[in-house]
């Protein structure tokens, strides 16, 4: 009689993964239409222009790839945190700190060594810089059980202000600017140097780093002991604790790792695009990383796709600026996040899709939405 009732079919898993994203895209489409119409333009024309300006020509593709590279890194960073049950809102400052450290390393490394030596060193420096910024909220959570949400938000301001001061108070910055001296010997070559078509775009071979990073993180999360323990802590910390996993230490490791990944993202601008650090280069990419991982359902592959999506939106905003203010894109970003956050089981109920019979509606655990414990000051776990 007992053959084990299947409560979660493949179909339902697919629903959980795809449905919120589709809903969000739909909502974004509708919201965009409304905004376009309010500006007196025709939605069809605007969307077409957006596609032309992004995927319709090599320069556009290049720009999309460039922006997606940074977003992939910040998205991965937030994803790693979420997988461990932590909400890292500090990707923005971790990104900036990483870029800063990369620039500092580039200034330290003598030009004679060339990019083969300089670039890897700079990437390591970037990772360490981001990791250091991720360490603080990780420690606060592990030792004191403090909200990592609030801690990362506060630290964002502190770190960004600090970096601003370093640039503004002279010494490091080129006079009359807020950026450091250019370091071409530590530059990552542009894609245009190999593929002529990308001429003029900022796309560079940091994209390779981002791709590699995605593969490494995917491997880490799903193939290693560390990833196994990290995900277990994020899914069910009480069970993880029962299995001898040290939960607070895992939180700390997750935050440090998350910060390091975001830091590496900083090299896209600092080594690949400008070959110097500029105050404020992060430009909101850290916060967008949250959106990227939400839409990407917390999975490395999803993050890449979502990064491409948001990068398309961002670049597309520039392309449509003649017709509609590019700020429309920023509104859409917020709308998409909100739509993803409020969808899920509500949407299914709206579409009158009930969970399969027999199963008491077990709340689907949250690898894809920030779990209820993310940001909570207390858990059921000791310490």
């Amino acid at each position: 009689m007992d053959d084990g009732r299947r409560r979660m079919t493949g179909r339902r898993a697919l629903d959980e993964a795809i449905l919120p994203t589709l809903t969000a895209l739909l909502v974004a489409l509708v919201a965009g239409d409304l905004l376009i119409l309010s500006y007196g333009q025709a939605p069809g024309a605007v969307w077409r222009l957006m596609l032309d300006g992004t995927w319709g020509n090599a320069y556009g593709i290049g720009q999309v790839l460039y922006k997606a590279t940074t977003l992939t890194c910040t998205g991965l960073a937030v994803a790693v945190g979420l997988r461990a049950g932590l909400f890292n809102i500090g990707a923005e400052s971790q990104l900036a700190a990483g870029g800063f450290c990369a620039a500092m390393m580039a200034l330290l490394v003598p030009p004679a060594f060339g990019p083969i030596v300089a670039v890897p060193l700079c990437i390591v420096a970037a990772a360490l810089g981001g990791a250091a910024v991720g360490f603080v909220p990780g420690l606060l959570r592990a030792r004191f059980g403090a909200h990592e949400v609030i801690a990362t938000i506060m630290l964002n301001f502190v770190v960004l202000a600090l970096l601003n001061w370093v640039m503004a108070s002279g010494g490091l910055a080129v006079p009359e600017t807020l950026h450091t001296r250019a370091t071409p010997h530590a530059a990552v070559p542009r894609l245009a140097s190999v593929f002529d078509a990308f001429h003029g775009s900022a796309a560079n071979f940091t994209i390779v780093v981002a791709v590699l990073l995605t593969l490494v993180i995917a491997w880490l999360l799903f193939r290693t002991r560390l990833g196994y323990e990290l995900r277990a802590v994020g899914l069910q910390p009480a069970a993880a604790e029962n299995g001898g996993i040290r939960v607070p230490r895992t939180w700390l490791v997750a935050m440090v790792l998350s910060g390091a990944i975001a830091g590496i993202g900083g090299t896209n601008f600092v080594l690949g695009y400008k070959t110097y650090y500029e105050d404020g280069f992060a430009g909101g990419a850290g916060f967008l990383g949250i959106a990227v991982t939400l839409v990407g359902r917390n999975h490395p592959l999803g993050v890449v796709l979502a990064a491409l999506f948001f990068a398309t939106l961002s670049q597309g905003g520039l392309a449509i600026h003649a017709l509609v203010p590019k700020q429309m894109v920023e509104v859409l970003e917020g709308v998409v996040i909100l739509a993803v956050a409020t969808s899920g089981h509500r949407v299914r109920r709206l579409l009158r899709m009930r969970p399969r019979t027999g199963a008491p509606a077990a709340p689907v655990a949250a690898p894809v939405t920030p779990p209820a414990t993310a940001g909570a000051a207390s858990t059921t776990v000791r310490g």
Partner: protein
Amino acid sequence: MPRHAATPRTTAAGPAVRMTGIVKRFGAVTANADASLVVTPGEIHAVVGENGAGKSTLLRVLSGMFTPDAGTVEVFGRDVTGWSTAQAIAAGVGMVHQHFMLVPTLTVAENVVLGIEPTSGLRFDRAQAERRLAELARTSGLACEPGRLVRDLSVGEAQRVEILKTLYRGARLLILDEPTAVLSPPEVDELWRVLRTLRDGGATVVLVTHKLDELMDVTDHITVMRAGRTVGALVTRRTTPAAIATAMVGRAVALDASGMPIGAAVSGTDDAEGTRDAATTATTATHHVFRAPDVGVPTPAYSDTPRLALEELVIAGTRRARAVDALSLRVQPGEIVGIAGVEGNGQTELVEAIAGLREVERGRILVDGTDVTRFPVGKRLRHGITHIPEDRHARGLVLDYSIAENLILGRQRHFARSGRIDRRRVRQFAEERIAAFDIRPADPDLPARALSGGNQQKIVVAREMPADFRVLLASQPTRGVDVGAIEFIHDQLRAARRAGKAILLVSAELNEILALSDRIAVMYGGRIVHVVPRAEASEESLGPWMTGAAA
């Protein structure tokens, strides 16, 4: 002042409460199969029974929380079957739950008046609330300090506030669900005094409990429930605690020649005045009939170094000051020690402490002579202490992990080479465990969430009983598990015992304890009050110890 109820509060003749033929099901579980209750106005009435007997469910039907699937409910002569809690409160029926519904950061007065606060203009008239409350406290005999914060109150004081809440809303019929479960002995005395005062003031009190020692002085009538049915309605002064306990747990199962049970348990006795029930089938979701323990197996050899030794353990609790109070116990290799007792007497805290999930205030835990009291969980695992947690969904499994991933939880290091998990070895291991424990469906990649309760538990058991474990802490190992899986798990436990392992078994199911244990220790109030070899134990002899009736 209490609000006016819509119905007359007392009738000249007729019971305050009459419930007949109540049936209530939750999915596959039948909580009330044929329950009844008759309460005289102005009395204190106790509803007693083991865990899972259906007492709480019955009273929640009465209070309006649940609608019965069948049967009728009459309160003060009025048919109120299926009413809502709001209607019940308006009619003067108030329920005090086991888990208090109080806001810790507000004062007593604020908690009592929440929802019907007196106001003067925009202001919440705190002074008036406190005045009314003080008046109510005076007339009802419940002492309280209206201005104190609830979080500063003791458990007994908090309970009084809960009672005051119901009285403030005009309750004339009070229902209390396991009110003494969280109280210390002096607080229990205080509660009885309060209830008597309320009764003398004309209120009717119905309380759910399983602690018999205290009932004899306080109650007027006792209704006994077992397996979802009412099996006895007794007059307190004409019965004895032993008789009540017997009615609660039923007679022992008769065995035939091959050791299998004949028929089913028979309820009711001839000693006490009450209903004699016909033979009923006892195999409900909560009441199983277990095979008798192995006969002819030699008793475990007692060595100087016990496998597991607990010395004077003191463990802090969340409700009571001490969940475990100077507890000592030894388990030998090749022995199953069963801890019998009603839930909430410290068993959970004890097992958690031995597993390393809870701190020990004083005392020591030793495994084969090694002091493991301060070891973290991982280190205890490596010392051979394994743990089947009582809540498999919270502590036992990561439901979104596959069967295989759950099976390696705790020893993932063994399967990792330089950080990378060897998936082939994991799969091999998982397939072996799945086969050995007959886990179905036998697909290692299936998420644990997709399995039935019994198979989920088998994952936990398979994981926690590797070849090399030394001490197993099995807490409610067959709760919510179907019959086939129960037998399987029991066989595994017996096999481990034969292989020389030590097992500490905690179960609220007395039959399970009796079916598996070599020795039985009864836990009550955080202490071990009785230890007895299996041969000398029975449901009747243990019942009084479990309920505190045996002094």
